[in-house]
């Protein structure tokens, strides 16, 4: 095997947002890249459950790699989003002080923001906070305005990155679990559930499995300590209750509970921050969810009248270290991208750029880039026209999110089709609205069942 040229120049293990962004980066740079994913679709792990904020890095640790990647990622997303059809809600954020200790912390928040180069951050008065956010509870004491914070979408961004990677000649290998590997003269032969796979360089973007995959190359210098975040999504009627992202004054461990809009017109409350051993399963818990809602009502009392649309939980691959764990191992022909927590959505394009430079430094120049092919994802937001508004539209299948049959059919075909029901929902928003499939499950199944076997079985001829 080792005498043959590897099948790929690069194998990226893990198709979360970071893997997808790196896949895009190196496919655009002219490498033959394989994006190797254990799940049936992209975003099968940590990346699918995020708060979907685009951070300026105002509150990050100055001088850290995380801050650098976030800020470069922030700038690149701003430059890229229109071409890829990605949403960007320029909401801004307000860090709200609810007590004297909070209030005392505000100048420090401003100072850190300035140290991070986010110079438009400033403290604002109680009146100014109220004028911007009239639904906030009366007892607020002040705030810090962060104009650059924004809302994006955790699903369409990585989808667009992966699709652009595919359009540039990359290969996506879903359902391919890496179980081991050995270094060869020409790089690596990875053992996978689909057989061996050879690549010149391996990039470990395995998220919550990061240290397990790292052990293929070396004893992992970091240990993944999954941190769970639960969220509550409120009905679209709650959207108007907050215009900026409402942030609490953070503590050492967590940024605290945030209230923000979503790209699709809902209002989000979360996350919790709970450490756990289990790397696979992010469960929601009624008591914690009720706690989130109580905290939400504490900040915006009228939230109490708003129905819950859904709840979710995500596992973030935290480690014993605060910063990202990114390292190139030239001898091992291996690049480690570990410990990318919830900032990874913002940071992903910056991490990809950082890896580009690491690669050039350690593994030699990259081939001349071809002209990038733009692969915009279908628009799912109400900011731009959608298929349901067009004359001659086909049947609306999901009436809560106004998803047409054509949109669902398209997501099941073409480059990077939905690999499972979750992937279909994330690509189209069908079954994601206030009824959560009460009205559309049957129609979605009729359209999707031929592509996603195993969800339903015909009643006649039950296969026995």
């Amino acid at each position: 095997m080792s005498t043959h040229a590897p099948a790929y120049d690069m194998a990226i293990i893990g198709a979360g947002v970071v893997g997808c962004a790196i896949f895009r980066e190196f496919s655009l740079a002219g490498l033959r890249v394989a994006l190797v994913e254990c799940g049936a679709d992209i975003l099968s792990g940590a990346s699918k459950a995020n708060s979907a904020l685009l951070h300026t890095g105002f509150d990050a640790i100055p001088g850290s790699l995380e801050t650098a990647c976030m800020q470069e990622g922030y700038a690149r997303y701003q430059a890229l989003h229109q071409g890829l059809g990605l949403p960007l809600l320029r909401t801004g954020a307000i860090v709200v002080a609810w007590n004297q200790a909070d209030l005392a912390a505000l100048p420090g928040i401003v100072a850190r923001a300035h140290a991070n180069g986010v110079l438009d951050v400033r403290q604002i008065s109680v009146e100014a906070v109220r004028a911007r956010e009239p639904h906030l509870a009366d007892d607020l004491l002040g705030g810090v305005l962060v104009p650059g914070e924004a809302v994006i979408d955790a699903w369409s961004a990585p989808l667009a990155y992966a699709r652009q990677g595919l359009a540039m000649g990359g290969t996506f290998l879903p359902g391919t679990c890496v179980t081991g590997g050995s270094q060869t003269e020409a790089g690596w032969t990875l053992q996978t559930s689909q057989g061996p796979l050879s690549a010149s360089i391996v990039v470990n973007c395995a998220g919550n499995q990061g240290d397990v995959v790292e052990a293929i190359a070396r004893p992992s210098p970091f240990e993944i300590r999954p941190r769970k975040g639960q969220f509550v999504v409120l009905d679209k009627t709650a959207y108007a209750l907050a215009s900026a992202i409402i942030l609490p004054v953070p503590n050492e461990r967590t940024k605290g509970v945030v209230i923000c809009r979503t790209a699709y017109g809902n209002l989000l409350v979360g996350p919790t921050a709970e450490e756990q051993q289990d790397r696979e399963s992010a469960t929601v818990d009624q008591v914690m969810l009720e706690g989130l809602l109580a905290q939400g009502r504490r900040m915006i009392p009228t939230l109490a009248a708003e129905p819950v649309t859904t709840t979710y939980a995500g596992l973030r691959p935290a480690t014993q270290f605060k910063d990202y764990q990114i390292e190139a191992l030239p001898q091992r022909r291996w690049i480690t991208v570990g410990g990318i927590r919830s900032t990874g959505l913002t940071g992903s394009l910056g991490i990809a750029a950082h890896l580009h430079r690491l690669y050039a430094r350690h593994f030699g120049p990259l081939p001349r880039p071809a002209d990038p092919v733009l692969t915009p994802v279908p628009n799912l937001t109400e900011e731009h026209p959608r298929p349901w508004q067009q004359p001659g539209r086909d049947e609306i299948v999901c009436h809560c999110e106004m998803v047409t049959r054509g949109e669902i059919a398209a997501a099941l075909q073409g480059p990077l089709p939905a690999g499972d029901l979750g992937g279909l929902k994330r690509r189209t928003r069908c079954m994601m609205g206030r009824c959560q499939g009460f009205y559309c499950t049957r129609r979605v199944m009729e359209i999707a069942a031929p592509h996603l076997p195993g969800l339903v079985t015909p009643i006649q001829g039950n296969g026995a």
Partner: protein
Amino acid sequence: MMRSAIIIGGGPAGLSAARTLVRAGHDDVLVLERNPEAGGLPRFAAHPGWGMLDFHRLWSGPTYARKLVAAARGAEIRTDTTVTALLPGGGVEVSGPGGVERLWAHTVLLAAGIREMPRGARLLSGTRPWGVMGTGAFQELVYAGGVRPFQQPVILGTELVAFSALLTARHAGIRPVAMLEEAPRITARRPGEWIARHVLGVPVRTATRLVAIEGGARVEAVLVEHAGRQERIACDGVILSGRFVPEAALVRGGPLQFDAATGGPAIDNHFRCSDPAFFAAGNVLRPVEHSGAAALEGIAAARAMVRALAGALPEPGQSIPVLAQGGLRYVYPQRLVPGDAPIRLYARASGEQRGRLRVLADGRAVQERKLHALPERRITLTLPAALLRDVESLSVELA
């Protein structure tokens, strides 16, 4: 074109209203139905139990739905047309195959019906696998889709609809492993439990709480708690029955007054909303009544619309607000426009409760009776017209 009436929703309430309006001589009634066919939720419950109250027959749901559509002939039924907004003064914005447009009428009836509360809104704990769904989605999969999403689900809840789900399961060769009820007794009327246990062979576990749903891609088990002890029940699906919510997002986000207690639009005793061009009937008014009751409301609302079109409906001006108090979850109509006829009020208790049901006019008890209220049962009160004379506000309580 200004029509006499636009009806939002082609289910039992909407189609019955259309029939009534057509029979009263209105030949320009438009029914807007977002699905490819009218008939409403009964389309997906193929066992008998429909038509008793309004047609005095016992039909299957799909037959009942067809009869409702046939009886509404003379009205234009526009399917595949979804209302996206209500416009003050009697307008609706719709998306149909022809695109987005605005339609206007002298009277608009909201009859958008009801759905079940999904898993997220119930804040249920656990993982989020495939195989957790409401009775409505389940019945539609089985009867309209001809497929089953699981083989051995548990059924959460014991409202009437849970027993409908049991019958559906039997039709599909699905064997539910248990019915779970948090309360000490089932919600549906008595024979339900007996039928479940002895006819369908499904154990009913009362005083049992669902702790968590377990499973990866699919449901693998539920964790339940009974008398302080937890137990794991292996299953491959969860049917969430009951916990109905009116499909009233158009109201909550729109120009009409919304009642957070019913979850539907606030109406007066003529089924009239806060904007007098709008009326509402059927299950959009409050959590569920049987489709026959919804149909009868559709007929009554349509009669009020006929009167409104003839200029014969009393002005909404001097209305008496009605409040639900202690022990009552809600009461409707939420406003009364007194006239010569007695007025009916409908209420539901917050849970099982024994006490005295009192009507207070300006704080003074004017009607009182003993009541043993059960969850999800309608409480009806009739107020003689004389009782409302010179009254400024009314409240109803169960104490």
